[in-house]
């Protein structure tokens, strides 16, 4: 007996998405399809295995792939008793799905994340790190002789960019909760206040930038929709009350295509960020936690990265990934390290100060910004109000808000941004 489970339109729920959901179940489950081109088909799944597939005159693998040719139609999912004579399955659902989706999109599916993580730069003429000289396995790393090459093997942060060349700055951190979104938002605002045109891009599917300003409902589309080819920049870009600051949210009202999250379409990110950089002086990008996945795609398109180091022991231990993540990018796609911003410093807490001291001793001296950001209740107040720190009180912002002006000043200097016109004002008329 057929027992209905769910039904809907393929326009609303993609077939790959429906099948992945069905793959979670252990029931003998049928997916009946009526495609928009008048054809129909059926796929049976059990415990993540495709038992059978039929489509018009086709059977098996051929039928399975054939059912992905149309994105228009309806699906009906039902379960029924497992037949006693269950045949050998066609294969694992995840494998068949990856093949079918890759064929539909005409592109090879990205390698699994674990392979990407192992990737080493392969640029001709660039030797891999010699054996026995690995990147540090812990942070703070052990002291090294002065003559040793720059830690993590990254290039020194001496950005040499011609005026007018793109400036795409990604805020990255190996650890979640380190304050990337807060830093990206408030720094972007301060850069705009200094007179630079800025586009702030939220690259994290969680959409923390809009959450911070309580504006998730304002997003019609986002960067991930553009990367997926289902929205334009014009549709997604949001103007702010600051004339020089625009926001590009991560996503629109709905979560992006589930395939997209795991595929990391690197080149589309590169293209998107490059296009945005033509429309402003600085593109600031907030990235998801971690140095791989989407962050990696964004870093490939960025000209510079700012590492966000939370002044907390766990964060410092995972910060080694910052160097490793950069190191694993191919030479031609590796952004410059603009600096490392120490965040959430607690000067009355020894462990927090220890992280600061460790960073001073062990990171390349030029990496650390002079400005450090303390842990401060004003951040919670700003989040509650849904405003950037500086906007918490227009007349009298909390003093900590001014630190972002300092940080933005350092960033502008390191990026060699053309200084806005000076407006000196005499005290006496």
């Amino acid at each position, binding site marked *: 007996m057929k027992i209905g489970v*769910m039904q809907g339109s393929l326009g609303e729920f993609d077939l790959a998405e429906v099948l992945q959901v069905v793959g979670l*179940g252990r*029931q003998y489950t049928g997916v009946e399809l009526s495609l928009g081109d008048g054809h129909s088909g059926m796929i049976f799944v*059990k415990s993540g295995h495709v038992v059978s597939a039929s489509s018009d005159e086709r059977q098996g693998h051929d039928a399975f792939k054939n059912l992905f040719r149309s994105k228009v139609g309806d699906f*009906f999912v039902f379960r029924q008793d497992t037949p006693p004579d269950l045949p050998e399955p066609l294969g694992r659902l995840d494998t068949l799905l990856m093949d079918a989706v890759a064929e539909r999109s005409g592109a090879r599916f990205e390698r699994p994340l*674990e392979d990407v993580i192992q990737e080493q730069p392969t640029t001709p003429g660039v030797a891999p790190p010699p054996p026995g000289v690995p990147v540090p396995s812990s942070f703070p790393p052990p002291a090294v002789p002065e003559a040793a090459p720059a830690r993590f093997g990254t290039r020194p942060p001496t950005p040499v960019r011609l005026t007018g060349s793109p400036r795409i700055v990604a805020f990255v951190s190996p650890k979640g909760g380190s304050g990337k979104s807060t830093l990206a938002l408030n720094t972007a605002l301060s850069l705009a206040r200094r007179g630079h045109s800025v586009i702030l891009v939220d690259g994290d*599917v*969680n959409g923390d930038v809009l959450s911070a300003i309580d504006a998730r409902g304002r997003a019609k589309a986002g960067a991930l929709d553009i990367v997926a080819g289902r929205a334009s920049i014009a549709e997604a870009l949001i103007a702010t009350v600051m004339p020089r600051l625009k926001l590009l949210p991560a996503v629109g009202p*709905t979560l992006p295509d*589930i395939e997209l999250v795991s595929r990391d379409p690197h080149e589309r990110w590169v293209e998107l960020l490059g296009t945005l950089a033509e429309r402003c002086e600085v593109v600031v990008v907030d990235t998801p936690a971690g140095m791989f996945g989407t962050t990696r795609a964004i870093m490939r398109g960025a000209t510079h990265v700012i590492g966000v180091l939370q002044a907390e022991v766990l964060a410092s231990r995972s910060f080694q990934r910052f160097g490793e993540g950069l190191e694993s990018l191919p030479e031609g796609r590796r952004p410059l390290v603009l600096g490392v911003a120490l965040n959430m410093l607690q000067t009355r807490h020894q462990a927090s100060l220890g992280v600061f001291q460790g960073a001073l001793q062990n990171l390349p001296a030029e990496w650390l910004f002079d400005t450090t950001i303390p842990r401060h209740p004003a951040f919670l107040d700003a989040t509650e109000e849904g405003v950037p720190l500086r906007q918490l009180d227009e007349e009298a912002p909390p003093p900590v808000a001014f630190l972002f002006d300092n940080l933005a000043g350092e960033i502008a200097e390191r990026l060699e941004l053309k200084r806005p016109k000076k407006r000196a004002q005499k005290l006496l008329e």
Partner: protein
Amino acid sequence: MLTENDRHAVRKSFRLVVPIADTAADLFYKRLFELKPDYRALFQGDISAQKRKLLRMLAFIVKSLDFEDAQWKDDVPPEQDLMLVVLALGRRHTELYRIPAESYGVVADALLWTLDYGLGEAFTPEVRAAWTRLYTLLAATMRLGAATVDRDGALTGAAAAERQGEEALLVQLSEAGIDEARLGAEEPS
């Protein structure tokens, strides 16, 4: 796409969560309300019952992923089927609790933050990627809960879904080795 390696990584890392389950649940809600203070109003009264529900659901999800490939032909009762239970959970969230769709992203953030904080160095990029993919898939399943149909004894309405979900999860805490007593007193229903 949830791979076999992802399932393994999720199972293995969850074993490390079990001994600190009560703390993890505290951290999760602390982080959630830090990210979205207005969500506190969605949970009436004491949070203990909600913590218990969260851990039951997590334990159930992880246990459901724990089967060998060779066992694919084995049957599982519908009330213990991960797809059906999560579809029902999604339906409850939409129809009973009126949870906003945007909350999926916030919950993901809080969950990953909690795992990161709780697991420390064991929360490697691979483990993070596995949990992210699992959560994304579960969120998609919950969204599809709105598409469930009422036919021939299938889930009939949100209240039935509530019963089905709760019954399926009752035994999960003890099976996962989580000490329920540490989660605070059960709220009178």
